[in-house]
């Protein structure tokens, strides 16, 4: 990587400034009490169904945060875990959380403990249900597969960053007949989850989870800000596509050449 490429270009400043502006603006307007609409996300609505099924069957729930560490993906996974554990604690259903990252393990333990406390049943928290298995990809995967089969889980929830182990887990979840809900920002693993899970949360729906589940105004505002940010990106893509197509059709129009040159300058092809 060249020395210049590891720093932000002016185009990054402009686009990121716009995104940050929209997100903060919408967060502030939501905090002032403005009502915001959020569409239904079936995968996230299915979380309650998964908890309900496990409760009815008297079997545990498995919540696997993948190979996520303590980063944005891992923190979002913990936010979802908190929601699931609170729901499960209400009905006395066990939630088993196998972890691959030791830092996230400590956070997950606190999250689970907090969730039981918040529901007023701290005595139901079993420290052994939040388990650090291994930081090696396939050692962790085989550990989770073992839990799936030994505990005969009724619901398996996969929320976090996944690599090749996604299919191994989801197929074993199918074998034990668990209802499976998955969400990952790893685009390469989405097809595997789609093929094997009952519900799959795709792309930025993963980051919408905390807003969707908690309905907190700050988070809902952020979500609307994200949508406006996506409109900015769509606008840039459309502008670029139209400008370059028009220039190809009319190569001698001066202002079109200037426009495409400006776009190329700020958004160079990598």
């Amino acid at each position, binding site marked *: 990587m060249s020395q210049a490429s590891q720093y932000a270009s002016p185009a990054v400043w402009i686009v990121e400034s716009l995104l940050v502006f929209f997100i903060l603006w919408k967060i502030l307007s939501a905090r002032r009490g403005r009502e915001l609409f959020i569409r239904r996300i079936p995968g996230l609505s299915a979380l309650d169904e998964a908890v309900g099924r496990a409760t009815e069957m008297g079997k545990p729930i498995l919540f696997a945060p993948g190979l996520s560490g303590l980063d944005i993906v891992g923190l979002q996974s913990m936010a979802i875990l908190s929601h699931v554990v609170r729901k499960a604690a209400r009905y006395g259903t066990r939630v088993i959380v196998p972890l691959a990252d030791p830092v996230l393990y400590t956070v997950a333990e606190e999250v689970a403990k907090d969730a039981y406390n918040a529901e007023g049943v701290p005595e139901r928290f079993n420290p052994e249900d939040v388990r650090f298995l291994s930081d090696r990809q396939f050692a962790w995967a085989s550990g989770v597969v073992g839990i799936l089969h030994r505990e005969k889980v009724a619901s398996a929830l996969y929320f976090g960053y996944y690599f090749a182990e996604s*299919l191994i887990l989801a197929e074993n979840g199918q074998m034990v007949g668990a209802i499976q809900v998955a969400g990952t920002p790893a685009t390469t693993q989405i097809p595997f989850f789609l093929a094997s899970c009952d519900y799959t949360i795709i792309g*930025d729906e993963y980051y919408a989870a905390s807003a969707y589940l908690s309905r907190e105004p700050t988070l809902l505002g952020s979500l609307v800000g994200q949508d406006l940010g996506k409109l900015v990106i769509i606008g840039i893509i459309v502008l670029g596509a139209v400008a370059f197509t028009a220039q190809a059709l009319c190569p001698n129009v001066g202002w079109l050449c200037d426009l495409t040159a400006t776009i190329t300058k700020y958004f160079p092809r990598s």
Partner: protein
Amino acid sequence: MSSVWNWIAIPRHGWQFAVFLCGALVIGCAVLMLLTSTPPRYRKTIVAAVTFLAGLYYALEFLIPPALWPLKPPRNPLSEVQPLVATLTQIIWSFALLLGVWNLFLIHGRAVAKHGRGWYNSAAFFISFFAILGAGLLKDYAKNAGLSKASESIFTVLFSGFLTSLDATMFSLIAFYIVSAAYRAFRVKSLEAALMMAAAAIIMLALVPVGAEITNWLPQAGLLSALRVERIGYWLLTSPNMAAQRAIAFGIAVGSLAMGLRIWLSLERGNFFDRQL
């Protein structure tokens, strides 16, 4: 600034190592005591301030190119300390790893003590843990050359012979799972499933020589060449598939930016972010 950081980051030995270790422990305990004695309503402010400063480091390091810093020769001084920041992160991770190992010991220790179902698996954990730990330590630190060599051989058997092979075994299982997953995914139950099935069939045919053979009677160039299986497969991969993947990637990027921003500015709400510290 980097020279100060470099001085701190140099590996120490002997009495210097002991002094730095004691210093780190004293500073760590002092910070912990200070945080504990701080009234709860200020604790969140301290955590928010530390989070903001840590995030600000990475934001400035990425957003301000060397040319904009008033330094000669042009450089970004924040980039120079990045290896040290990475080392600090690794140290924190290493401490947490001990907690992870402690959790493993607790769970498997109880299983062995209770002699419950499958307790021998837990015993196997302890045997393999101490075997590879012992072999690894002896390999690096044994004074006796013979012992060191023997330990290295044992370590190689345990690591390459067992662990790597078991990893490869788990990985190879994916091939079988792909078949069962594909069987379910490609059952034609709706229009969307039929389209996916057709697209998958074309791409599979495009990737094997027999696929190209099917439409070999079509010309290599010209309008009709676009109907050759390998061309359709290439188009499916690079146009509709790539467009969808990029759209998902854009959404993920904006989503992670929003979440990063909320955490950086301590705006995150709900669940454990609202807890009293």
